[in-house]
């Protein structure tokens, strides 16, 4: 034991399990532990998992140097409507900004369609007289007396936080600043959040939404992390805690408190960051990520870096915060198979979830699920699921399958095989349009599979898509926890700019970027961490004058000719055309800042040559219409450069890798399984 802290712990709190992953950054040794989540008190599971890991590895709490935390707490608070009671004050005439949103119904062709109720009820939204023009010029002054009256009214009605969103405040924050000061002076103790601080960009609904969410979930998140720190302290961990971001990277708890909306989709995002990081190391920079768990499969594209989306959905709300573009498909191991009135087999979107779970869990589930099909087809070993912690009940799975088979006139095995085929085609139907939207050419991409069911279904999905390479990371069940550990500290600093091309003065533009970089620098300083390096990336949102579609262009030089050229090239690659005579304008300047944390050493290979990867047994499994004898391997016993040929099954604590015939799999020096389709 040494006193020098070298351990990093990644934590991911999910609905069913809380994962904790311990990595020694010097030796690269790692260990994963999954404990059941505690929905009423999520920090308890975090503490239990971290304490359990340290004990299993016989390491001291003082050896922990950094704890990286990802959580769905923000989104849960939104879904359950359990945030801080919040009032919203807006420009007169725009009270229904939140409720109208962008005016799209979540389901069409449906008489019973309902809109998601706004986070702040209409009685908690107040209007005040004030108005700016689009240029930022004041048209009507802020009515201060009315503002205070309305703020008091909202507090009387129960608001503990007040969000402010005035039209065009991204251009000129004068009224919002005055309002913040007035409210703070008059109503101390009320949390005030102004839109120009949270999200200084045009589009009032999106900006108001970000501001309201900030006010609504900020306090619960801050309370939660205080609790986490307290609990960790109680087991002797004093290391700083950082939080994963929806757009990749991590930031301090204090920063998360300032801008909680940036953490809302952080769990799945860190899995993708982790996949991108591993992909980069093994010379697979272009991957499609498939994270398949119990209820959903999350899909995203990494082309060098993860693809981003500026319009994401959380708890039914459309948000404009940048986030790694992840599409959730309602197809997981728990997806329920059923037969429609015409006798056609369907799979999902309904899921058996964690409770009762698949029939094979033996907890009262009677409907056949994808997991039950895995079991019947020999993909899973009933005695070796999740390291033997759950014994799968073959009889219940078979009974469930037979009840379905009796309706389709097939055998239980045949219907199980059909479930897998339909599940694959469900993935195909969702994936192809997503990949097309991002311009992915499948021939040059690999499929990176993780999550509990990703490696089980992934090879078959690859065949369906026509992808010929599959990557199975060492810890498929701990990717979200790992992704955070491999991430750097990141943030983005933004300024509204609004200049037509001909008005751009390079020296002035240079100044603006420098100012943003200064802000970024002091933000990095405030993180309380030591960085190996700091870097910035400049970019600008630009568009054709008079249009409302911006595209983000990397800024190398501030010379207008070069910026214009960069815009046209980018426009061409995104939309397939550009108009070189069109007039341009710069809308927003951005500086993305990265504080690099020390690299984590590659772990020793899972097994050394002397372990000779023995197949410890064989099992019958169903492939391509018949039973085949498949070799069964223990993941931890597979040596570097071992080549496995399908049909084969690789079992490990967090998943089972199903390798169909035609695939050849090699274990690389880091313990990743790299597969190639040889047919």
């Amino acid at each position, binding site marked *: 034991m040494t006193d020098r802290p070298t351990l990093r712990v990644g934590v991911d709190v999910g609905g069913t399990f809380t994962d904790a992953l311990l990595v020694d950054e010097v030796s690269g040794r790692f260990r994963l532990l999954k404990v059941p989540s505690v929905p009423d008190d999520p920090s308890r599971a975090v503490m239990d998992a971290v304490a359990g890991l340290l004990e299993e590895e016989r390491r001291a709490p003082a050896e922990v140097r950094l704890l990286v935390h990802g959580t769905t707490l923000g989104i849960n608070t939104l879904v359950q409507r359990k945030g801080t009671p919040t009032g919203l004050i807006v420009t007169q005439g725009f009270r229904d900004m939140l*409720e109208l949103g962008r005016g*799209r*119904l979540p389901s069409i062709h449906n*008489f019973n*369609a309902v809109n998601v109720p706004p986070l702040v009820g*209409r009685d908690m939204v107040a209007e005040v007289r004030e108005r700016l023009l689009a240029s930022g010029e004041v048209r009507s002054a802020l009515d201060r007396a009315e503002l205070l009256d309305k703020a008091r009214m909202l507090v009387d009605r129960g608001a503990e936080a007040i969000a402010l969103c005035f039209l065009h405040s991204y251009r000129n924050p004068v009224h919002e600043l005055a309002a913040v000061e007035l409210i703070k002076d008059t109503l101390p103790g009320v949390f005030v959040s102004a839109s120009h601080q949270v999200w200084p960009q045009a589009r009032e609904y999106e900006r108001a939404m970000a501001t309201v969410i900030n006010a609504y979930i900020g306090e619960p998140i801050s309370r939660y992390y205080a609790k986490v720190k307290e609990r960790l302290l109680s087991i002797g961990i004093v290391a700083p805690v950082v939080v994963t971001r929806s757009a990749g990277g991590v930031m301090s708890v204090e920063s998360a408190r300032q801008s909680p909306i940036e953490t809302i989709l952080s769990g799945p995002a860190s899995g993708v960051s982790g996949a991108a990081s591993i992909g980069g190391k093994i010379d697979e920079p272009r991957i499609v990520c498939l994270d398949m768990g119990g209820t959903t499969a999350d899909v995203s594209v990494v082309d060098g870096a993860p693809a981003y989306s500026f319009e994401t959905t959380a708890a039914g709300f459309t948000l404009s915060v940048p986030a790694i573009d992840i599409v959730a498909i309602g197809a997981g191991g728990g997806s329920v198979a059923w037969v429609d009135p015409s*006798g056609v087999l369907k799979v999902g979107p309904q899921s058996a979830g964690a409770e009762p779970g698949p029939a094979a869990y033996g907890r009262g589930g009677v409907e056949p699920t994808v997991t039950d099909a895995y079991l019947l087809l020999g993909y899973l070993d009933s005695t070796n699921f999740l390291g033997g912690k759950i014994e799968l009940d073959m009889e219940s799975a078979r009974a469930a399958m037979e009840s379905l088979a009796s309706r389709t006139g097939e055998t239980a095995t045949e219907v199980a095989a*059909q479930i897998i085929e339909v599940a694959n085609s469900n993935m195909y*139907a969702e994936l192809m349009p997503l990949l097309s939207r991002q311009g992915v050419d499948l021939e040059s991409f690999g499929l990176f599979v993780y999550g509990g069911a990703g490696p089980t279904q992934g090879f078959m999905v690859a065949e369906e898509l026509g992808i010929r390479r599959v990557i199975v990371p060492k810890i498929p069940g701990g990717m979200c926890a790992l992704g955070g550990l491999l991430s750097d500290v990141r943030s983005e600093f933004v300024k509204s700019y609004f200049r037509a091309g001909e008005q751009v003065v390079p020296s002035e533009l240079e100044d603006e970027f420098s100012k943003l970089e200064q802000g970024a620098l002091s933000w990095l300083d405030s993180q309380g961490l030591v960085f190996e390096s700091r870097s910035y990336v400049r970019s600008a949102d630009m568009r054709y004058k008079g249009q409302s579609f911006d595209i983000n262009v990397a800024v190398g030089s501030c010379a207008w000719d070069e910026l214009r050229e960069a815009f046209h090239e980018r426009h061409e690659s995104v939309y397939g055309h550009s108009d070189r005579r069109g007039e341009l304008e710069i809308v927003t300047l951005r500086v993305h800042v990265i504080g690099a944390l020390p690299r984590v050493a590659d772990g020793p290979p899972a097994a050394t040559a002397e372990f000779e990867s023995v197949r410890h047994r064989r099992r019958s499994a169903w492939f391509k219409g018949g039973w085949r004898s498949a070799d069964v391997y223990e993941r931890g016993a597979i040596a570097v450069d071992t080549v496995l040929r399908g049909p084969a099954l690789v079992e490990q604590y967090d998943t089972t890798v199903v390798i169909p015939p035609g695939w050849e799999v090699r274990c690389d020096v880091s313990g990743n399984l790299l597969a190639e389709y040889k047919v």
Partner: protein
Amino acid sequence: MSLEYGPSGRLESLRNRYHAIVDEMSATLLRTGHTVFIKETGDFSCALVTPQGEVFCAPTRLGMIRIVGMNMATAIAASDPPEEGDIWIANDPWTTGGMSTHLPDVFLWQPVFVDGELLCYVWNFVHVSDIGGRVPGSISPSSVEIFEEGLILPPTRLYKRHEVNEEVLRIVLANTRIPKQTWGDIKAAVAALNIGRRRLIEMVDRYGMEALRSAQEQLLGWAEERAALLIDKIPDGEYRFTDYMEGAGLQGPFGISVALRVSGSKLQLDFSGTSPQVACAYNIPTGGRGPHYYLTTAIVTLLRTWDKNIPYNGGLVRNVSVYLPEGSVVNPRPGAAIGVRAATMHRIYDVVMGCLAQALPGVIPAAGAGQGPVVVVSVPAAEGKDRKVSVVQPLRGGSGGRPHCDGIDGIDITVGSGRNIPTEVLEQEMPLLIHKYGLRPNSAGYGEFRGGLGLELEFEVLCEEAKVACRGLERYRLRPWGLAGGRPGGLGRTIRNRGGDQEIDEGRFDLLSLKRGDRLYFATPGGGGYGDPSRRAESKIRRDLVEERFGDGVGTSERGAGARSEPGRGAGTTPMEDGGSESQPVRVMASFDLGSERMAFDADGGMHD
């Protein structure tokens, strides 16, 4: 059980594959399209079509999703024989059996051959932003003939053996005010067809030609069978309903009448009694024969509401037949103007819903706002070139109250797929100041479950002058009806300089000229209410008061008991005196509250005046 298709999951797998193809086509079109109409409004659609002309797969997510019931047989006959590498183009309603319903909707299709054998067609349309005619954008309510509405293209080869037909292209582009963007959108549609074709060929490699061919028929049969089971739930009988379009200019209100006949799993929509075609752009060219997609929206919505997993293809309407009198608004003779046909579609939806409401008490909502116009403003551009044009906002109203819950405030279900426009973006682009964009309190029909509120939009002109066009303003005179005791919804209004000395009620205007400082105010209709207002839950009343959605003692006729719950003449309440099948009972309808204005109108002779 009529379906026999190998293993139980095979058909679902192939359905998924086909869906992936139309979704990928749509994504390609959206990504590569040029104009706002494509990118923001999503006014396009893609489909896969059997060699016989039925849509066997249509997208449910991207683009306009009504294409599902369109039969392409006429267009296919006009492009016979199919040849490898040919892409056809058409926007002419009359040579395509009503496939295109107005000239900006440009359809393209391509046969897909594998080893010399025809598998199916890939198909799509794009709404191009201008196809010529007398006004920019090609659509004006006051057009009298189609020849005012732009270039008419009967089915024509745009590509021959994968090579673009330059002669045709030159004609097309010479007839639009924006050739570059128009060609950009058409190229996006071509790219989508080509990606669809490529994916289909890959699918043949995997599943074989025979399997895919028979899957097309199986998919249609599957949807047909599911639809039949659902239609069977509608009680047999005949149900009738009439409602009115307030129309354009001198073409005063004209009626849309329908009789819905249900017999087992078959439906007939008989539009006898519908107004003769009108001398303005509100006619819908349906081709006159089949269950055209503009006629069956309410039916398809009912089927999808009942079963969200029902396969989405032309099989859904195989059991629906129609009768469309020649020379009527719903089957006009060649030459009729059709630009604003979508406005009439809203009312067709309403009358079919009116019939369904009688057949299915407790299932169907009251009438929604029943309109979907878009406010468009043009201002002088800098440097005195062309004028600058922008959409201000789509004018939606509230949806109708429902048997189990209130209607939706500010969004009618029929227009729920579009998006609105951020005020901050609009004010950056146009010299306008938006004073108000929000819900319109008290505008809905009251009821146990009230209708959804309409919207208010008010803007001021900040430049020398501005022209405002708005096509398809409706429900300014005759209210969205209430149902089962619910009150009718509020009427739409347009007021210039509201509250000022020179306040002017502009009503359903076509085109307005405004000067600097003028304000224009729109109030959109609220939905009709559902159920007896006295049964409204205390908690809902309180909530509405607290949230200032629906006040107490506001004294509007929408809330009060002003209008009698007695349907007016022509509403289809009286038994048919002639025609109709004798064996089928004519049902006495549920109680509609059409509003006092409609009753006065009916008493005055209604449409027959």
